[in-house]
């Protein structure tokens, strides 16, 4: 502490140590919170087509089309350790070839301070609902659920599943051409 430089060094180093402690306090204050909330999901129009999957094998695979309603209030999820939410809608179903299929159909980023009360009606999916075979037609048990990744200031990156889910079925006939 005998020159300006050593004092400056000590001050900067101690400030950074305190900042690290404060960040850790912020992390500890939010790490045990329960981020689950409810979400109401509903499908409006559901179709399934049998079209060549040029992105993969060029064989004819099942392609689902659906529009959905989504209503949820995510304001309670935000706190001082949440910078943004990445919310995504997943379809989960079982086929004879695969025990578990998960397809992400839609996603959205909500920054902190933006409107987190979502009420969407009749939304198209953002991504194709391809099956890797012919498992969608007449599938009686496809569940849609909403999840979100929390992007924090410091700490874990939890992936949280909403409590509400919606189960729907695909029609037993393929729709005609595209």
């Amino acid at each position, binding site marked *: 502490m005998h020159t300006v430089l050593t004092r400056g060094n000590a001050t900067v180093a101690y400030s950074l140590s305190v900042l690290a402690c*404060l960040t850790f306090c912020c992390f500890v204050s939010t790490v045990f919170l329960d981020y689950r909330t409810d979400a109401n999901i509903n499908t409006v129009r559901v179709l399934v087509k049998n079209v060549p999957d040029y992105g993969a094998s060029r064989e004819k695979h099942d392609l689902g089309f659906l529009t959905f309603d989504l209503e949820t209030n995510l304001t309670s999820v935000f706190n001082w350790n949440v910078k943004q939410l990445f919310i995504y809608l997943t379809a989960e179903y079982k086929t004879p070839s695969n025990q578990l299929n998960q397809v992400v159909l839609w996603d959205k980023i909500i920054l902190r301070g933006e409107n987190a009360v979502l009420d969407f009606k009749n939304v198209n999916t953002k991504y194709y609902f391809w099956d890797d075979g012919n498992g969608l037609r007449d599938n009686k048990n496809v569940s849609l659920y909403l999840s979100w990744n929390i992007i924090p200031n410091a700490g874990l990156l939890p992936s949280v599943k909403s409590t509400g889910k919606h189960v729907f079925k695909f029609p037993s006939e393929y729709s005609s051409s595209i």
Partner: protein
Amino acid sequence: MFDIQTHMDFVGQAKAERWSRLIITFFGVVGLIYGAIVQQFSQTVYVLGVGFLLSSLITIPPWPFYRNNPLKWQKPVNVEQKPQTAAESGDEGKTKKKK
């Protein structure tokens, strides 16, 4: 022509270190409480930044009040006149010729 003192004495150095620790810690704790109340961690960081600036201003420059306890140097011993006494006591060997 300008006789600007840039040193701190030992008591002043201890004081400067203690004050910088106290100021930064205090602003950190206040910032944490304030940030938790308004639920904005950026406010915590800003309050800590204010504490850093204040501590830098108070404790980094060698202000005159850090020089209130100067060291009491012994009077220089005239070695040429009494060579035998200086050789007897080894302690005083380091105090010779300070300027």
